[in-house]
């Protein structure tokens, strides 16, 4: 990463942060502006585009039928995939998912799964045989930092936008009926990532900050203010105190965002 931002730039960022400022004029604990547009992919059962500053993520949701996992015969299946498509960054290359896109997909998945956001029990068609499978495809279109938060918010917005066909079971067969129902949901987790630069914590790091930051830590939290997923990343560490501080900041930010988004 050192080739992305010169050491001069690093010093500049550090000095700003020590004075409580950031390169893009935000305060240390400010998130960038978030814009959410839902339903823009008409052919998908659900979709949402999120702009977090210049970071742009499109999520499409497809609902199909398939088999449940053997150990949860009465639950529908939810699966998250992330593609870092090469038009999003000069550093992304075409090819099968690498460790970065796999980690991204799994962190987004964990926030949704562990908070039981999708009510998978209501997605069972026939126990052990046929359930709805919800494919959440995260498509990163422009990488300007903090892909985790942008993707997690876009994934939730797309799921909240998802419509499923009405259906009934007749003689064991699935019959599609008129009209649509929203995807059944039980919770609306919000994901907030904190970066650490020189022992300072910053919210929602963008690309230039990511290039110089030590580590990041992500917290997903639900309506009750409980934590439902954590992921530390980056090749440095946090002190226990920094982790507790970061968790408080992330939970506060989630409350703030929840109000703003009306989730």
């Amino acid at each position, binding site marked *: 990463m050192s080739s992305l931002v010169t050491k001069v730039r690093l010093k500049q960022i550090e000095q700003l942060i020590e004075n409580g400022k950031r390169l893009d004029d935000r305060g240390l604990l400010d998130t960038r502006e978030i814009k959410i547009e839902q339903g*823009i*992919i008409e*052919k998908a059962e659900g979709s949402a585009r999120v702009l977090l500053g*210049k970071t742009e993520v499109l999520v499409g949701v*497809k609902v199909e039928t398939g088999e449940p996992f053997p150990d949860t015969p009465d639950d529908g299946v939810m699966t998250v995939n992330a593609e870092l*498509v090469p038009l999003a960054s000069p550093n992304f290359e075409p090819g099968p*998912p690498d460790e970065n896109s796999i980690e991204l997909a799994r962190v987004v998945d964990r926030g949704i799964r562990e908070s039981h956001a999708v009510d998978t029990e209501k997605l069972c068609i026939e126990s052990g045989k046929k359930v709805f499978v919800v494919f959440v*495809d995260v498509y990163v279109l422009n990488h*300007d930092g903090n892909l985790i938060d942008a993707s997690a918010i876009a994934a939730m917005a797309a799921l909240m936008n998802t419509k499923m066909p009405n259906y009934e079971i007749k003689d064991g067969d699935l019959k599609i009926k008129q009209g649509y129902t929203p995807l059944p949901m039980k919770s609306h987790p919000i994901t907030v990532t904190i970066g650490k630069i020189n022992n300072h914590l910053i919210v929602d790091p963008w690309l230039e900050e990511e290039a110089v930051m030590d580590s990041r830590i992500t917290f997903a939290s639900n309506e009750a203010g409980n934590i439902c997923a954590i992921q530390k990343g980056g090749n440095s560490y946090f002190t226990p105190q920094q982790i507790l501080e970061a968790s408080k900041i992330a939970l506060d930010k989630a409350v703030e965002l929840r109000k703003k988004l009306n989730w």
Partner: protein
Amino acid sequence: MNEKSEKLIDKKGIRGDGRKADELRPLKLQVGVLSNADGSAYIEHGKNKILAAAFGPREMHPKHLAQPDRMVLRCRYHMAPFSVQERKSPAPSRREVELSKVIKEALEPALFLELYPRTGVDVFVEVLQADGGTRCAAITAAALAIADAGVPMRDLVVACAAGKVDDTVVLDLYDAEDKLGLADVPVAYMPSLNAVTLLQMDGILKPNEFEKALNMAMEGCKKIYEIQKEALKTKYMVVKEVDE
């Protein structure tokens, strides 16, 4: 294509989506939509929604692919899993590999490859929603992305299909016509050079029908060409205003 098509055009010559035989679908073009790419464009052509980005001319990676006497153009045409009715695996299909190749060969004639030896230009196309004619819309957007990257071009490349539905040669097939029609003829064209850079055909056409379809597709291309130039101008006019 089908052997026999259901009636897709009514007695008045109006198609399923309300168009006349030689009418284009609504079309929207935007240039410079992605901040990380050297050039980019977004197209809505009917319900097709497609992003294209160009990177370069830049050092080739891996290096051994660089050519001592010319620039290398690489293209990837890729469909988002949610862009079609049934979820598509993100791994490239054989269709996507072929389309990546013909799109590259449709764009290459517009470039002065010999001007930038040892470098490469990468064009990435992402189909976010597909509605028939994605390869044509992809070329139209990709040419804009290359132009937006500042790569010198002989002309813009613009693409549009014609085809045969019922007994009629029609312009710019949409999804249902693509599936139930009798023939599809995608064409890429450089209008000011009168040069066809992509031509494919599926289905069955009499020679005179083929000639009619080819001409109709080129007429369609010329109309889109005007929108393409406008989109490019709009972006750079805005830039100019900002500069002043």
